[in-house]
């Protein structure tokens, strides 16, 4: 217990009522972060304070303000004087306090959610955001519509039994498309599985999506994984794997490689609220901070991990507050506001690359669809809740209103687009459905870079069995 108290006391200094005047001084130092002074930390305000050189970035590199340094030393002196001594700990100097008080579980006010557009698609007053051109906005809207259309058609396709599985992005179109729009194609994506919009934005064709879902010979993954496990080397989009959060520490390794190669690019990785309970989430954030890796973590907090609501997932104020404990900059953003997502991701990317450090983005959104085609979410949540998010808080409609108010697009344009995408999809599905399955040899290749002797033997034996019992095997797989 004594140890616990001692450890907690490091950060308690800020809350000490005898130090009210110091708190005021600390408020001046919110943009200052010095490793030698662990009791000075950047507070949440620092995330939104503009500076002269850049509207969103702190003015100083590494967050050490030379202007603030003398104040800091003065502050240290006062603390030292008051408490007589400090402990020179391996992690830096820490002041003492005679006040025994615990840090509370959470602050009384929840971290606010950054937004640019209100529910009606109007720009909110005094917003600081990255400008989006007409051309970009129209494309963002059109890709969101395309994603919606693809989701609804593929979902139906699964319901008809023509593909084995599907999983929609419904409700999360803005997180998908706006984050993709804010990145460079050189940035490396390590997705979870609900971000096909990023791949769509990067030029993966509807035909390629269809090939993957049908697992045919044109699927880049050679028919080895379930539908929606997309991946494309050409598009810097690592292949999806089903385990939750495993991509997060991998993203740190990828980011470290970019850092060592001096690339002007970052790694971007996605996860959901459920992922944050996995050990890999912790591993990734801690590694990223320690390695100073240029990686952007985008957590889609959509309220539900299959049937588990966030209240049963964690007791913290969501995900955004977890960043600070790891020494990572973080922001909470309205995930259904495409402009807010765009601004936050764009700025996070700049921080990650220019400052060579990780950033955590929590996008508050809602999974309007079922978890997947294997799930019926009305068994654990009300249809009213779903309808509210689907209609009132629809991210595509909100963005569309803004685009239309600017006169950049019309209802007619959208209807035409939907119809055209639908036609393209129908054609793509026809082609993908007719295409051959991958050949049998694809079952054995790529386990290693070369076929190992045990696999050669097993392939030989399997072919003999197929000859003997041809009816036991799929006739459409070329032998």
């Amino acid at each position, binding site marked *: 217990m004594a140890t616990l108290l001692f450890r907690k006391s490091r950060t308690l200094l800020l809350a000490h009522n005898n130090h009210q005047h110091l708190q005021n001084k600390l408020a001046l130092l919110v943009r200052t972060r010095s490793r030698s002074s662990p009791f000075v930390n950047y507070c949440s305000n620092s995330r939104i304070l503009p500076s002269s050189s850049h509207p969103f970035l702190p003015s100083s590199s590494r967050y050490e303000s030379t202007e603030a340094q003398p104040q800091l030393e003065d502050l240290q002196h006062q603390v030292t004087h008051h408490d007589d001594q400090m402990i020179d700990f391996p992690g830096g100097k820490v002041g003492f306090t005679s006040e025994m008080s615990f840090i509370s579980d959470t602050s009384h006010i929840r971290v606010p959610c950054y937004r640019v557009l209100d529910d009606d698609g109007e720009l909110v007053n005094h917003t600081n955001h990255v400008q989006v051109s007409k051309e970009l906005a129209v494309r963002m809207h059109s890709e969101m519509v395309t994603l919606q259309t693809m989701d609804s058609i593929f979902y139906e396709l699964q319901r008809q039994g023509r593909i084995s599985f599907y999983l929609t992005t419904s409700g999360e179109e803005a997180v998908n498309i706006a984050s993709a729009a804010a990145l460079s194609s050189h940035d490396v994506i390590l997705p979870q599985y609900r971000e096909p919009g990023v791949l769509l934005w990067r030029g993966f064709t509807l035909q390629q999506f269809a090939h993957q879902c049908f697992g045919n010979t044109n699927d880049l993954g*050679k028919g080895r994984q379930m539908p929606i496990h997309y991946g494309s080397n050409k598009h810097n989009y690592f*292949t999806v794997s089903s385990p939750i959060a495993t991509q997060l520490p991998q993203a740190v390794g*990828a980011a470290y490689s970019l850092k060592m190669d001096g690339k002007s690019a970052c790694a971007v990785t996605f996860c959901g609220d459920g992922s944050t309970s996995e050990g890999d989430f912790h591993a990734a954030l801690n590694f990223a901070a320690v390695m100073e890796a240029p990686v952007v973590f985008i957590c889609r907090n959509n309220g539900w991990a299959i049937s588990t609501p966030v209240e049963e997932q964690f007791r913290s104020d969501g995900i955004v507050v977890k960043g600070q404990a790891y020494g990572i900059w973080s922001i909470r953003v309205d995930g259904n506001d495409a402009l807010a997502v765009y601004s936050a991701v764009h700025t996070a990317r700049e921080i990650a690359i220019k400052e060579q450090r990780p950033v955590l983005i929590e996008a508050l959104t809602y999974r309007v669809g079922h978890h997947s085609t294997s799930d019926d979410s009305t068994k654990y949540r009300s249809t009213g809740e779903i309808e509210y998010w689907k209609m009132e808080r629809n991210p595509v409609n909100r963005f569309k209103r803004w685009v239309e108010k600017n006169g950049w697009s019309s209802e007619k344009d959208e209807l035409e687009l939907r119809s055209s995408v639908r036609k393209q999809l129908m054609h793509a599905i026809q082609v993908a459905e007719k295409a051959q399955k991958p050949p049998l040899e694809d079952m054995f290749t790529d386990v290693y870079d070369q076929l190992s002797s045990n696999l050669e033997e097993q392939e030989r034996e399997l072919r003999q069995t197929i000859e003997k019992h041809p009816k036991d095997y799929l006739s459409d797989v070329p032998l």
Partner: protein
Amino acid sequence: MSRCVKRLGKWVSLGQSKRGFSTSTIQKDGVENGVKSLNLYSAINQALHIALDTDPRSYVFGEDVGFGGVFRCTTGLADRFGKNRVFNTPLCEQGIVGFGIGLAAMGNRAIAEIQFADYIFPAFDQIVNEAAKFRYRSGNQFNCGGLTIRTPYGAVGHGGHYHSQSPEAFFCHVPGIKVVIPRSPKEAKGLLLSCIRDPNPIVFFEPKWLYRLAVEEVPEDDYMLPLSEAEVIRQGSDITLVGWGAQLAIMEQACIDAEKEGISCELIDLKTLIPWDKETVEASVKKTGRLLISHEAPVTGGFGAEISASILERCFSRLEAPVARVCGLDTPFPLVFEPFYMPTKNKILDAIKSTVNY
């Protein structure tokens, strides 16, 4: 162990062990014609120096590797190659392997250290579900073949449950990774360099008991030894013995004692457990008609069972006795009872005799 074992094959001599996880850096000197007398950790260290020197895209990382590692395998690397390429990681095995996969997937050689094989399990998911399937699941668009996970395994005399285990069998059940275990300093250097440069993810188990104990002449130059190739390290005609890593030294002693009683033993070092060299073992068993497998890991579900089953399939009509397995017992690795748990020389010798006299 050290009392009874003096030599392994024609290269390795085992002196008296201090049996400690000490951190001193004693090594025998004696450079002759580009060959140096080295213990196993120094041979590993030399391999790592060569790996980092020959490929600027190679990295060494793990818990405490920055100052040289708790077994001294990474000595001098950070000083020579800088902290960007040789660095400590937070204490988190799943993080180390996950990070390594990402690093390797970007075209680097990621040489990760897990401090003890006993602690590799938090990384099991990253190894089994991620590293092993990375190439396959992407249709060969991506791979993390540059990943090598080094980890010390096995008994050390006083390691108890959590500093002694031999978990190789878990990984031998996973298509997509390779598992390699060296028996001596010279083998360790050549095999490790092969693993680092092999385009597949590999778990490389290092016999920690031999780090200081095993000393042999090791070529100073950059050389590689082939993977998935077993080696007959002792010719014989009556029975085939198969093993790997530190256990080979014990088996060698049993072979020597058996010879005194007129039994000619053939000893095979498997080296790579998956994908393993069935042909070499098969050819030997067809010649001797008998097979004995020995490993420190618990007998049930150990890799010996796989070898036994495979050879039975291929050599059933040539076998003159049941396949014998002399392995660790099916208990957690016990501290005080280690000598009782271990597949000792006399247990092996008894099994050789009863198999030959079956």
